Protein backbone atom coordinates (compact mmCIF):
# COMPACT_ATOMS: atom_id res chain seq x y z
CA UNK A 1 0.00 0.00 0.00
CA UNK A 2 1.52 3.27 -1.02
CA UNK A 3 2.00 6.00 1.55
CA UNK A 4 2.51 9.72 1.52
CA UNK A 5 5.74 10.49 3.36
CA UNK A 6 7.10 13.76 4.72
CA UNK A 7 10.86 14.05 4.95
CA UNK A 8 12.55 16.78 6.96
CA UNK A 9 15.45 18.45 5.17
CA UNK A 10 18.26 19.81 7.29
CA UNK A 11 20.57 22.67 6.42
CA UNK A 12 23.82 23.79 7.92
CA UNK A 13 25.01 27.28 7.16
CA UNK A 14 22.73 27.47 4.16
CA UNK A 15 23.64 24.14 2.56
CA UNK A 16 21.69 20.93 2.75
CA UNK A 17 23.19 18.19 4.84
CA UNK A 18 23.63 14.86 3.10
CA UNK A 19 21.31 13.15 5.53
CA UNK A 20 18.47 15.14 3.93
CA UNK A 21 19.04 13.19 0.69
CA UNK A 22 19.39 9.90 2.54
CA UNK A 23 16.09 10.63 4.27
CA UNK A 24 14.45 11.07 0.85
CA UNK A 25 15.75 7.63 -0.15
CA UNK A 26 14.39 6.17 3.12
CA UNK A 27 11.13 8.01 2.50
CA UNK A 28 10.83 6.33 -0.92
CA UNK A 29 11.21 2.89 0.65
CA UNK A 30 8.41 3.61 3.08
CA UNK A 31 6.26 5.39 0.48
CA UNK A 32 6.18 2.31 -1.73
CA UNK A 33 5.27 4.34 -4.80
CA UNK A 34 3.52 7.09 -2.83
CA UNK A 35 4.52 10.72 -2.77
CA UNK A 36 7.67 11.85 -0.93
CA UNK A 37 7.57 15.48 0.16
CA UNK A 38 10.61 17.27 1.55
CA UNK A 39 9.95 19.89 4.20
CA UNK A 40 12.41 22.72 4.51
CA UNK A 41 12.18 24.87 7.64
CA UNK A 42 14.17 28.03 8.30
CA UNK A 43 14.62 31.54 7.03
CA UNK A 44 15.78 32.39 3.51
CA UNK A 45 16.38 28.79 2.56
CA UNK A 46 14.21 28.32 -0.53
CA UNK A 47 17.26 28.33 -2.85
CA UNK A 48 18.10 24.75 -2.01
CA UNK A 49 14.60 23.38 -2.66
CA UNK A 50 15.42 22.24 -6.19
CA UNK A 51 18.33 20.20 -4.97
CA UNK A 52 15.89 18.15 -2.88
CA UNK A 53 13.85 17.50 -6.01
CA UNK A 54 17.01 16.45 -7.86
CA UNK A 55 17.60 13.89 -5.12
CA UNK A 56 14.16 12.41 -5.49
CA UNK A 57 11.64 14.54 -3.59
CA UNK A 58 8.36 14.75 -5.52
CA UNK A 59 7.50 18.08 -3.97
CA UNK A 60 9.03 20.54 -1.52
CA UNK A 61 7.19 22.52 1.11
CA UNK A 62 8.99 25.39 2.77
CA UNK A 63 8.13 27.06 6.04
CA UNK A 64 9.97 30.32 6.50
CA UNK A 65 9.94 32.72 9.38
CA UNK A 66 12.50 34.90 11.12
CA UNK A 67 11.76 32.91 14.27
CA UNK A 68 12.83 29.75 12.48
CA UNK A 69 16.28 31.08 11.65
CA UNK A 70 17.63 28.97 14.50
CA UNK A 71 16.33 25.62 15.58
CA UNK A 72 14.05 25.37 18.58
CA UNK A 73 11.86 22.41 19.43
CA UNK A 74 8.85 24.69 19.89
CA UNK A 75 9.35 26.60 16.64
CA UNK A 76 10.17 23.63 14.45
CA UNK A 77 7.39 21.48 15.85
CA UNK A 78 4.85 24.24 15.19
CA UNK A 79 6.13 24.51 11.62
CA UNK A 80 6.03 20.77 11.01
CA UNK A 81 2.65 20.32 12.63
CA UNK A 82 1.21 22.92 10.26
CA UNK A 83 2.57 20.99 7.28
CA UNK A 84 1.32 17.72 8.75
CA UNK A 85 -2.12 19.18 9.19
CA UNK A 86 -2.18 20.28 5.57
CA UNK A 87 -0.77 17.07 4.09
CA UNK A 88 -1.93 14.30 6.41
CA UNK A 89 1.11 12.12 5.79
CA UNK A 90 1.28 8.43 6.63
CA UNK A 91 5.03 8.52 7.17
CA UNK A 92 7.70 10.91 8.50
CA UNK A 93 11.47 10.57 8.17
CA UNK A 94 14.23 12.72 9.66
CA UNK A 95 17.93 12.37 10.32
CA UNK A 96 19.07 11.03 13.68
CA UNK A 97 21.12 14.18 14.08
CA UNK A 98 21.24 16.57 17.00
CA UNK A 99 18.17 18.28 15.57
CA UNK A 100 16.29 15.10 14.73
CA UNK A 101 17.00 13.54 18.13
CA UNK A 102 15.68 16.63 19.87
CA UNK A 103 12.62 17.18 17.70
CA UNK A 104 11.32 13.71 16.83
CA UNK A 105 10.23 12.52 20.30
CA UNK A 106 8.29 15.72 20.89
CA UNK A 107 6.56 15.40 17.56
CA UNK A 108 5.80 11.72 18.17
CA UNK A 109 4.27 12.69 21.49
CA UNK A 110 2.20 15.44 19.85
CA UNK A 111 0.99 13.01 17.21
CA UNK A 112 0.51 10.22 19.74
CA UNK A 113 2.56 7.96 17.51
CA UNK A 114 5.30 5.40 17.70
CA UNK A 115 8.79 6.33 16.60
CA UNK A 116 11.71 4.14 15.62
CA UNK A 117 14.95 6.04 16.25
CA UNK A 118 18.42 5.68 14.75
CA UNK A 119 17.51 3.36 11.90
CA UNK A 120 20.44 2.03 9.87
CA UNK A 121 18.58 -0.13 7.35
CA UNK A 122 15.05 -0.69 6.09
CA UNK A 123 13.48 -3.90 4.83
CA UNK A 124 10.57 -2.77 2.75
CA UNK A 125 9.61 -5.87 0.81
CA UNK A 126 6.44 -6.87 2.64
CA UNK A 127 3.44 -4.88 3.76
CA UNK A 128 4.81 -3.12 6.78
CA UNK A 129 8.44 -2.10 6.54
CA UNK A 130 10.89 -3.40 9.11
CA UNK A 131 13.45 -1.07 10.60
CA UNK A 132 16.85 -2.16 11.80
CA UNK A 133 18.60 -0.23 14.52
CA UNK A 134 21.66 -0.82 16.69
CA UNK A 135 21.09 -1.40 20.42
CA UNK A 136 23.36 -2.09 23.41
CA UNK A 137 25.93 0.46 22.28
CA UNK A 138 26.13 -1.14 18.86
CA UNK A 139 26.77 -4.66 20.14
CA UNK A 140 23.41 -5.95 18.90
CA UNK A 141 20.64 -5.04 16.46
CA UNK A 142 16.89 -5.07 16.67
CA UNK A 143 14.32 -5.22 13.93
CA UNK A 144 11.24 -3.17 14.68
CA UNK A 145 7.86 -2.57 13.15
CA UNK A 146 5.36 0.16 13.82
CA UNK A 147 2.13 -1.54 14.74
CA UNK A 148 -0.29 0.97 13.32
CA UNK A 149 -0.72 4.64 12.63
CA UNK A 150 2.04 6.90 11.43
CA UNK A 151 5.30 5.36 10.22
CA UNK A 152 7.78 7.68 11.92
CA UNK A 153 11.53 7.06 11.93
CA UNK A 154 14.86 8.83 12.28
CA UNK A 155 17.81 7.53 10.25
CA UNK A 156 21.46 7.37 11.22
CA UNK A 157 23.52 9.47 8.77
CA UNK A 158 25.71 7.69 6.21
CA UNK A 159 23.90 4.34 6.28
CA UNK A 160 21.00 4.48 3.84
CA UNK A 161 22.43 5.59 0.50
CA UNK A 162 20.96 8.66 -1.15
CA UNK A 163 19.53 8.27 -4.64
CA UNK A 164 21.52 9.33 -7.66
CA UNK A 165 21.17 13.07 -8.25
CA UNK A 166 19.05 13.77 -11.30
CA UNK A 167 19.51 17.34 -12.54
CA UNK A 168 16.50 18.73 -14.31
CA UNK A 169 14.01 16.60 -12.40
CA UNK A 170 11.02 18.76 -11.67
CA UNK A 171 8.78 19.06 -8.68
CA UNK A 172 6.50 21.66 -7.17
CA UNK A 173 7.86 23.99 -4.49
CA UNK A 174 5.22 25.60 -2.30
CA UNK A 175 5.19 27.28 1.05
CA UNK A 176 3.12 27.07 4.18
CA UNK A 177 2.94 30.06 6.46
CA UNK A 178 2.76 29.54 10.18
CA UNK A 179 2.41 31.95 13.03
CA UNK A 180 5.28 30.91 15.28
CA UNK A 181 4.45 31.81 18.87
CA UNK A 182 5.57 31.20 22.38
CA UNK A 183 9.14 29.97 22.00
CA UNK A 184 10.03 28.81 25.48
CA UNK A 185 13.72 28.20 24.87
CA UNK A 186 15.79 30.95 23.29
CA UNK A 187 19.25 30.49 21.85
CA UNK A 188 21.45 33.33 23.08
CA UNK A 189 24.74 32.27 21.62
CA UNK A 190 26.21 29.58 19.46
CA UNK A 191 29.88 28.77 19.66
CA UNK A 192 30.85 26.88 16.54
CA UNK A 193 33.71 24.59 17.24
CA UNK A 194 33.13 22.08 14.53
CA UNK A 195 35.88 22.56 12.00
CA UNK A 196 34.89 23.63 8.56
CA UNK A 197 35.54 21.23 5.76
CA UNK A 198 34.17 17.73 5.72
CA UNK A 199 31.33 17.04 8.16
CA UNK A 200 32.50 14.19 10.41
CA UNK A 201 29.21 12.33 10.45
CA UNK A 202 29.15 12.34 6.65
CA UNK A 203 32.85 11.83 5.86
CA UNK A 204 33.87 8.86 3.71
CA UNK A 205 37.30 8.65 5.33
CA UNK A 206 38.10 9.44 8.97
CA UNK A 207 41.53 9.48 10.56
CA UNK A 208 40.99 9.45 14.31
CA UNK A 209 43.46 10.02 17.10
CA UNK A 210 43.39 9.00 20.73
CA UNK A 211 45.42 9.58 23.81
CA UNK A 212 48.31 7.88 22.05
CA UNK A 213 48.66 10.97 19.84
CA UNK A 214 50.09 12.66 22.94
CA UNK A 215 49.69 16.36 22.06
CA UNK A 216 47.96 18.90 19.89
CA UNK A 217 50.93 18.86 17.51
CA UNK A 218 50.66 15.09 17.41
CA UNK A 219 47.42 15.54 15.46
CA UNK A 220 49.21 17.30 12.57
CA UNK A 221 50.23 14.15 10.71
CA UNK A 222 46.70 12.79 11.16
CA UNK A 223 45.31 15.96 9.58
CA UNK A 224 47.73 15.64 6.72
CA UNK A 225 46.67 12.06 6.09
CA UNK A 226 42.98 12.97 6.29
CA UNK A 227 43.44 15.85 3.83
CA UNK A 228 45.30 13.61 1.46
CA UNK A 229 42.41 11.12 1.47
CA UNK A 230 39.71 13.79 1.29
CA UNK A 231 38.52 12.88 4.73
CA UNK A 232 38.11 14.36 8.19
CA UNK A 233 39.92 14.10 11.52
CA UNK A 234 38.17 12.57 14.50
CA UNK A 235 39.18 11.78 18.06
CA UNK A 236 38.50 9.65 21.09
CA UNK A 237 37.24 11.07 24.33
CA UNK A 238 40.67 10.42 25.76
CA UNK A 239 42.25 12.83 23.28
CA UNK A 240 39.55 15.46 23.88
CA UNK A 241 39.84 15.21 27.66
CA UNK A 242 43.59 15.64 27.40
CA UNK A 243 43.01 18.83 25.38
CA UNK A 244 44.79 17.55 22.29
CA UNK A 245 41.79 18.53 20.21
CA UNK A 246 38.32 19.97 20.46
CA UNK A 247 35.30 18.03 21.72
CA UNK A 248 33.62 18.65 18.39
CA UNK A 249 35.89 15.91 17.01
CA UNK A 250 34.80 13.33 19.56
CA UNK A 251 33.51 10.07 18.16
CA UNK A 252 31.48 7.65 20.25
CA UNK A 253 28.39 7.33 22.31
CA UNK A 254 28.66 10.86 23.67
CA UNK A 255 30.08 12.31 20.51
CA UNK A 256 29.37 11.65 16.89
CA UNK A 257 28.33 8.34 15.48
CA UNK A 258 30.12 7.77 12.21
CA UNK A 259 30.01 5.15 9.47
CA UNK A 260 32.71 6.06 6.96
CA UNK A 261 34.06 3.72 4.29
CA UNK A 262 37.43 3.88 5.98
CA UNK A 263 38.19 4.57 9.65
CA UNK A 264 41.84 4.77 10.67
CA UNK A 265 42.21 4.66 14.47
CA UNK A 266 45.58 5.90 15.68
CA UNK A 267 46.53 5.46 19.33
CA UNK A 268 42.98 4.62 20.38
CA UNK A 269 42.47 1.69 22.76
CA UNK A 270 38.93 0.83 21.67
CA UNK A 271 36.68 1.43 24.68
CA UNK A 272 33.06 0.35 24.22
CA UNK A 273 31.89 3.98 24.32
CA UNK A 274 34.25 4.78 21.46
CA UNK A 275 33.28 1.69 19.47
CA UNK A 276 29.59 2.61 19.82
CA UNK A 277 30.41 5.50 17.53
CA UNK A 278 32.49 3.79 14.86
CA UNK A 279 32.20 0.00 14.88
CA UNK A 280 29.84 0.03 11.90
CA UNK A 281 32.42 1.67 9.65
CA UNK A 282 32.95 -0.31 6.46
CA UNK A 283 36.70 -0.83 6.85
CA UNK A 284 38.60 -0.21 10.07
CA UNK A 285 42.36 0.16 10.32
CA UNK A 286 43.98 0.22 13.74
CA UNK A 287 47.42 1.54 14.49
CA UNK A 288 48.41 0.91 18.09
CA UNK A 289 51.60 -0.07 19.82
CA UNK A 290 49.82 -2.43 22.18
CA UNK A 291 49.05 -5.72 20.39
CA UNK A 292 46.42 -6.48 23.05
CA UNK A 293 44.46 -3.25 22.46
CA UNK A 294 40.73 -3.83 22.10
CA UNK A 295 40.57 -1.85 18.89
CA UNK A 296 42.24 -4.74 17.04
CA UNK A 297 39.12 -6.82 17.73
CA UNK A 298 37.07 -4.71 15.36
CA UNK A 299 39.86 -3.81 12.96
CA UNK A 300 40.00 -5.29 9.47
CA UNK A 301 43.68 -4.44 9.23
CA UNK A 302 46.01 -3.72 12.08
CA UNK A 303 49.51 -2.43 12.40
CA UNK A 304 51.18 -2.94 15.75
CA UNK A 305 53.58 -0.06 16.02
CA UNK A 306 54.28 3.52 16.93
CA UNK A 307 51.82 5.82 15.19
CA UNK A 308 54.52 8.47 14.84
CA UNK A 309 56.43 6.06 12.60
CA UNK A 310 53.47 4.58 10.81
CA UNK A 311 51.37 7.63 9.95
CA UNK A 312 54.16 9.57 8.15
CA UNK A 313 55.03 6.44 6.20
CA UNK A 314 51.37 6.04 5.26
CA UNK A 315 51.28 9.62 4.02
CA UNK A 316 54.35 8.98 1.86
CA UNK A 317 52.96 5.75 0.49
CA UNK A 318 49.56 7.24 -0.36
CA UNK A 319 51.31 10.15 -2.08
CA UNK A 320 53.31 7.70 -4.14
CA UNK A 321 50.35 5.69 -5.31
CA UNK A 322 48.41 8.88 -6.04
CA UNK A 323 51.15 10.10 -8.30
CA UNK A 324 51.58 6.84 -10.13
Amino acid at each position, binding site marked *: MSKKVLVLAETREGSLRNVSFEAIAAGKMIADGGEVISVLIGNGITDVANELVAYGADRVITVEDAKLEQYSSDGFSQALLAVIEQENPEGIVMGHTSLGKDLSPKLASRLNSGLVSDVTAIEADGDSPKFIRPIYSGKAFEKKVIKDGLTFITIRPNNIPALEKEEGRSGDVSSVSVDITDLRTIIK*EVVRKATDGVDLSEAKVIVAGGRGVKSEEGFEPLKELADLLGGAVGASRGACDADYCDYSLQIGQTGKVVTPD*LYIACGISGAIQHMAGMSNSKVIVAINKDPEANI*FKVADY*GIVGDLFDVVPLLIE*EFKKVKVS
Partner: protein
Amino acid sequence: MNIFVLMKRTFDTEEKISVSGGKIAEDGAEFIINPYDEYAIEEAIQLKDAHGGEVTVVSVGDEETEKQLRTALAMGADKAVLINIEDDVDMTDEFSIAKILSEYLKDKDADLIIGGNVAIDGGSGQVAPRVADYLNIPYVTTITSIKVDGEKVEIVRDVEGDSETIETSLPLLVTAQQGLNDPRYPSLPGIMKAKKKPLDEIELDDLDLEEDDVEPKTETVEIYLPPAKEAGRILEGEVDDQVKELVQLLRTEAKVV
Protein backbone atom coordinates in the same frame (compact mmCIF):
# COMPACT_ATOMS: atom_id res chain seq x y z
CA MET B 1 13.47 23.40 44.20
CA ASN B 2 11.41 20.31 43.65
CA ILE B 3 13.66 18.17 41.45
CA PHE B 4 12.87 14.82 39.85
CA VAL B 5 15.39 12.56 38.17
CA LEU B 6 14.41 9.95 35.58
CA MET B 7 16.63 6.96 36.12
CA LYS B 8 16.88 3.81 34.06
CA ARG B 9 18.51 0.60 35.20
CA THR B 10 20.56 -0.58 32.25
CA PHE B 11 22.61 -3.45 31.09
CA ASP B 12 26.29 -2.69 31.42
CA THR B 13 27.20 -2.69 27.75
CA GLU B 14 30.87 -3.05 28.57
CA GLU B 15 29.99 -6.67 29.32
CA LYS B 16 29.81 -9.38 26.71
CA ILE B 17 26.42 -9.59 25.09
CA SER B 18 24.67 -12.68 23.82
CA VAL B 19 21.24 -13.49 22.49
CA SER B 20 19.16 -16.41 23.64
CA GLY B 21 15.53 -17.17 22.88
CA GLY B 22 15.24 -14.01 20.77
CA LYS B 23 16.29 -11.80 23.67
CA ILE B 24 19.47 -10.36 25.08
CA ALA B 25 20.57 -12.90 27.68
CA GLU B 26 20.43 -11.38 31.14
CA ASP B 27 21.73 -14.11 33.37
CA GLY B 28 25.03 -13.21 34.89
CA ALA B 29 24.90 -9.75 33.31
CA GLU B 30 25.86 -6.64 35.27
CA PHE B 31 23.24 -3.95 35.70
CA ILE B 32 24.05 -0.35 36.43
CA ILE B 33 22.46 3.08 36.59
CA ASN B 34 22.44 4.34 33.02
CA PRO B 35 25.67 6.43 32.97
CA TYR B 36 23.91 9.54 31.66
CA ASP B 37 21.42 9.28 34.50
CA GLU B 38 24.33 9.33 36.96
CA TYR B 39 25.12 12.80 35.66
CA ALA B 40 21.46 13.68 36.13
CA ILE B 41 21.46 12.50 39.74
CA GLU B 42 24.70 14.37 40.50
CA GLU B 43 23.39 17.59 38.96
CA ALA B 44 20.14 17.32 40.90
CA ILE B 45 22.04 16.94 44.18
CA GLN B 46 24.28 19.90 43.39
CA LEU B 47 21.30 22.09 42.50
CA LYS B 48 19.53 21.08 45.68
CA ASP B 49 22.63 21.90 47.71
CA ALA B 50 22.77 25.34 46.10
CA HIS B 51 19.08 26.20 46.07
CA GLY B 52 17.46 23.99 48.67
CA GLY B 53 14.58 21.64 47.99
CA GLU B 54 14.31 17.95 47.41
CA VAL B 55 15.53 15.34 44.93
CA THR B 56 13.29 12.41 44.00
CA VAL B 57 14.61 9.69 41.71
CA VAL B 58 11.97 7.83 39.69
CA SER B 59 12.37 4.65 37.71
CA VAL B 60 10.04 2.44 35.74
CA GLY B 61 11.35 -1.04 36.27
CA ASP B 62 11.01 -4.22 38.24
CA GLU B 63 11.98 -5.42 41.69
CA GLU B 64 15.65 -5.57 40.70
CA THR B 65 15.65 -1.82 40.09
CA GLU B 66 15.59 -1.20 43.85
CA LYS B 67 19.32 -1.73 43.90
CA GLN B 68 20.07 1.15 41.53
CA LEU B 69 17.54 3.36 43.32
CA ARG B 70 19.31 2.68 46.64
CA THR B 71 22.57 3.70 45.00
CA ALA B 72 20.97 6.97 43.92
CA LEU B 73 19.81 7.54 47.50
CA ALA B 74 23.31 6.77 48.75
CA MET B 75 24.69 9.41 46.37
CA GLY B 76 22.43 11.93 48.09
CA ALA B 77 18.95 11.86 46.57
CA ASP B 78 16.21 12.26 49.19
CA LYS B 79 13.54 9.91 47.92
CA ALA B 80 13.14 7.17 45.39
CA VAL B 81 10.08 5.88 43.61
CA LEU B 82 9.92 2.58 41.81
CA ILE B 83 7.09 2.19 39.36
CA ASN B 84 7.06 -1.57 39.21
CA ILE B 85 5.43 -2.77 35.99
CA GLU B 86 6.61 -6.33 36.17
CA ASP B 87 3.21 -7.86 36.88
CA ASP B 88 1.10 -5.52 34.78
CA VAL B 89 2.77 -5.12 31.42
CA ASP B 90 4.24 -7.61 28.99
CA MET B 91 5.54 -5.34 26.29
CA THR B 92 6.64 -1.74 26.38
CA ASP B 93 8.24 0.80 24.12
CA GLU B 94 9.38 4.40 24.46
CA PHE B 95 5.80 5.63 24.34
CA SER B 96 4.75 3.29 27.16
CA ILE B 97 7.60 4.23 29.48
CA ALA B 98 7.16 7.95 28.80
CA LYS B 99 3.44 7.73 29.39
CA ILE B 100 3.90 5.96 32.73
CA LEU B 101 6.48 8.50 33.90
CA SER B 102 4.28 11.40 32.74
CA GLU B 103 1.24 10.10 34.56
CA TYR B 104 3.31 9.82 37.71
CA LEU B 105 4.79 13.31 37.31
CA LYS B 106 1.73 15.23 36.19
CA ASP B 107 0.57 16.29 39.66
CA LYS B 108 3.96 16.50 41.37
CA ASP B 109 4.65 20.19 40.71
CA ALA B 110 8.18 19.49 39.58
CA ASP B 111 10.32 22.57 39.05
CA LEU B 112 13.00 20.66 37.25
CA ILE B 113 13.11 17.17 35.76
CA ILE B 114 16.50 15.76 34.77
CA GLY B 115 16.99 12.67 32.63
CA GLY B 116 19.81 11.18 30.65
CA ASN B 117 20.17 12.04 26.98
CA VAL B 118 20.15 8.40 25.98
CA ALA B 119 20.02 4.95 27.56
CA ILE B 120 23.09 2.95 26.58
CA ASP B 121 21.06 -0.20 25.96
CA GLY B 122 17.82 0.91 24.25
CA GLY B 123 19.49 3.94 22.74
CA SER B 124 16.46 5.81 21.43
CA GLY B 125 16.77 9.02 23.44
CA GLN B 126 13.00 9.40 23.22
CA VAL B 127 11.75 9.04 26.75
CA ALA B 128 12.66 12.39 28.32
CA PRO B 129 11.47 14.76 25.53
CA ARG B 130 8.27 12.73 25.28
CA VAL B 131 7.69 13.28 29.00
CA ALA B 132 8.29 17.03 28.64
CA ASP B 133 5.80 17.26 25.81
CA TYR B 134 3.23 15.28 27.73
CA LEU B 135 3.60 17.60 30.73
CA ASN B 136 3.61 20.58 28.39
CA ILE B 137 6.86 22.01 29.74
CA PRO B 138 9.91 23.13 27.74
CA TYR B 139 12.94 20.88 27.46
CA VAL B 140 16.59 21.14 26.50
CA THR B 141 18.56 18.02 25.54
CA THR B 142 22.26 17.12 25.87
CA ILE B 143 23.16 19.82 28.38
CA THR B 144 26.68 20.36 29.69
CA SER B 145 25.88 23.17 32.14
CA ILE B 146 22.85 24.59 33.93
CA LYS B 147 22.50 27.69 36.11
CA VAL B 148 19.27 28.44 37.89
CA ASP B 149 18.45 31.94 39.10
CA GLY B 150 14.92 32.15 40.51
CA GLU B 151 12.68 31.07 37.62
CA LYS B 152 15.32 31.88 35.05
CA VAL B 153 17.58 29.18 33.71
CA GLU B 154 20.70 29.44 31.60
CA ILE B 155 21.90 26.30 29.91
CA VAL B 156 24.77 25.29 27.69
CA ARG B 157 23.99 22.41 25.41
CA ASP B 158 26.17 20.30 23.17
CA VAL B 159 25.10 20.21 19.54
CA GLU B 160 27.36 17.85 17.66
CA GLY B 161 30.38 19.49 19.27
CA ASP B 162 29.18 23.09 18.90
CA SER B 163 27.81 24.66 22.03
CA GLU B 164 24.62 26.65 22.36
CA THR B 165 23.73 28.91 25.25
CA ILE B 166 20.03 28.77 25.92
CA GLU B 167 17.75 30.88 28.06
CA THR B 168 14.59 29.38 29.41
CA SER B 169 12.60 29.11 32.62
CA LEU B 170 11.22 26.69 35.16
CA PRO B 171 9.37 24.36 35.13
CA LEU B 172 11.69 22.59 32.76
CA LEU B 173 13.05 19.22 31.70
CA VAL B 174 16.67 18.72 30.68
CA THR B 175 18.77 15.74 29.62
CA ALA B 176 22.35 15.22 30.68
CA GLN B 177 25.31 14.90 28.34
CA GLN B 178 28.72 13.69 29.39
CA GLY B 179 30.72 16.67 30.68
CA LEU B 180 27.89 18.02 32.85
CA ASN B 181 29.70 17.02 36.06
CA ASP B 182 31.67 14.22 37.67
CA PRO B 183 29.22 11.95 39.44
CA ARG B 184 30.24 11.15 43.01
CA TYR B 185 30.61 7.65 44.36
CA PRO B 186 28.31 6.87 47.26
CA SER B 187 30.17 7.35 50.54
CA LEU B 188 29.94 4.85 53.38
CA PRO B 189 27.81 7.18 55.53
CA GLY B 190 25.76 7.85 52.40
CA ILE B 191 25.12 4.14 51.99
CA MET B 192 24.11 3.83 55.65
CA LYS B 193 21.74 6.78 55.39
CA ALA B 194 20.23 5.47 52.17
CA LYS B 195 18.88 2.45 53.99
CA LYS B 196 16.54 4.69 55.96
CA LYS B 197 15.47 6.93 53.11
CA PRO B 198 12.02 6.38 51.60
CA LEU B 199 11.81 4.10 48.58
CA ASP B 200 8.18 3.89 47.52
CA GLU B 201 6.93 1.26 45.21
CA ILE B 202 3.85 1.84 43.11
CA GLU B 203 2.10 0.05 40.29
CA LEU B 204 0.11 1.05 37.23
CA ASP B 205 -3.08 0.85 39.21
CA ASP B 206 -1.84 3.57 41.57
CA LEU B 207 -1.53 5.84 38.53
CA ASP B 208 -5.01 4.95 37.29
CA LEU B 209 -3.47 3.31 34.26
CA GLU B 210 -4.48 0.06 32.64
CA GLU B 211 -2.29 -2.10 30.47
CA ASP B 212 -4.18 -0.86 27.39
CA ASP B 213 -3.28 2.76 28.14
CA VAL B 214 0.38 2.00 27.77
CA GLU B 215 0.17 -0.46 24.92
CA PRO B 216 3.31 0.01 22.83
CA LYS B 217 3.06 1.51 19.36
CA THR B 218 6.10 -0.30 18.05
CA GLU B 219 7.19 -3.88 18.31
CA THR B 220 10.54 -5.61 18.21
CA VAL B 221 10.30 -8.60 15.92
CA GLU B 222 13.88 -9.75 16.09
CA ILE B 223 17.06 -9.19 18.08
CA TYR B 224 20.37 -10.40 16.73
CA LEU B 225 24.08 -9.94 17.05
CA PRO B 226 26.02 -8.45 14.16
CA PRO B 227 27.58 -11.16 11.99
CA ALA B 228 30.82 -12.14 13.64
CA LYS B 229 33.51 -10.13 12.01
CA GLU B 230 36.26 -12.20 10.53
CA ALA B 231 39.36 -11.74 12.59
CA GLY B 232 41.16 -8.76 11.22
CA ARG B 233 44.55 -9.10 9.67
CA ILE B 234 47.47 -7.94 11.79
CA LEU B 235 50.21 -7.10 9.34
CA GLU B 236 53.72 -8.34 9.87
CA GLY B 237 57.25 -7.56 8.85
CA GLU B 238 59.19 -4.32 8.77
CA VAL B 239 57.11 -1.19 9.33
CA ASP B 240 57.80 0.08 5.79
CA ASP B 241 56.56 -3.15 4.31
CA GLN B 242 53.50 -3.21 6.53
CA VAL B 243 52.57 0.27 5.38
CA LYS B 244 53.05 -0.66 1.72
CA GLU B 245 50.95 -3.75 2.20
CA LEU B 246 48.23 -1.80 3.99
CA VAL B 247 47.92 0.77 1.22
CA GLN B 248 47.84 -2.03 -1.32
CA LEU B 249 45.10 -3.87 0.60
CA LEU B 250 43.01 -0.73 1.01
CA ARG B 251 43.21 -0.12 -2.71
CA THR B 252 42.77 -3.59 -4.11
CA GLU B 253 41.07 -5.76 -1.47
CA ALA B 254 38.93 -3.34 0.53
CA LYS B 255 38.69 -0.87 -2.38
CA VAL B 256 38.01 2.09 -0.11
CA VAL B 257 40.63 4.51 -1.37
